[in-house]
């Protein structure tokens, strides 16, 4: 089920594509739940987002993305991502 030579391994490429997807899904889910905690009023008076919540979500998404950049650089710099 896996190429054992030195040539490029399709199963490996497949695995990497899968892991990239897994990673993006996990990143998105973490962004959703982090911004939910920061922005959403938990009294749940109704099921709509207020103007304030909507603009908080936009800024939160942007800041969250920036944090992934800083953390990525720091992990890369120290070679901690193996």
């Amino acid at each position, binding site marked *: 089920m896996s190429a054992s030579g030195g040539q490029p391994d*399709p199963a490996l*490429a*497949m695995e*990497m*594509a*899968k892991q*990239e*997807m*897994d990673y*993006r*899904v996990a990143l*998105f*889910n973490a*962004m*959703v*739940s982090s*911004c*939910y905690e920061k*922005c*959403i009023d*938990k009294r*749940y*008076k*109704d*099921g*709509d*987002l207020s103007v304030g*919540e*909507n603009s908080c*979500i*936009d800024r939160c*998404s*942007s800041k969250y*993305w920036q944090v992934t950049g800083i953390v990525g650089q720091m992990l890369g710099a120290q070679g901690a991502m193996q």
Partner: protein
Amino acid sequence: GNVPAEQQQQLMQEIEKMQVRDSLRMYNSLVERCFRDCVESFRRKDLDSTEEKCVQSCCGKFMKHSARVGIRFGELSSEAETQMAA
């Protein structure tokens, strides 16, 4: 990534699996969250109307929130790819 053509189909199947798995996980986490935020009293075994309404609002809010983050996520990803290519 650069996936050989003959594995594209397998990849599509993996994506489908992931989508099912992910929507089930999202469903589960939504139940957990709305239960935690809306149900405080255990003197009866049925939800009262306030709790029910709260769960519905929680669910509605979460879906709208999730959709909005999805749009932003898409924009931020495209920007990042554009910068990488430049």
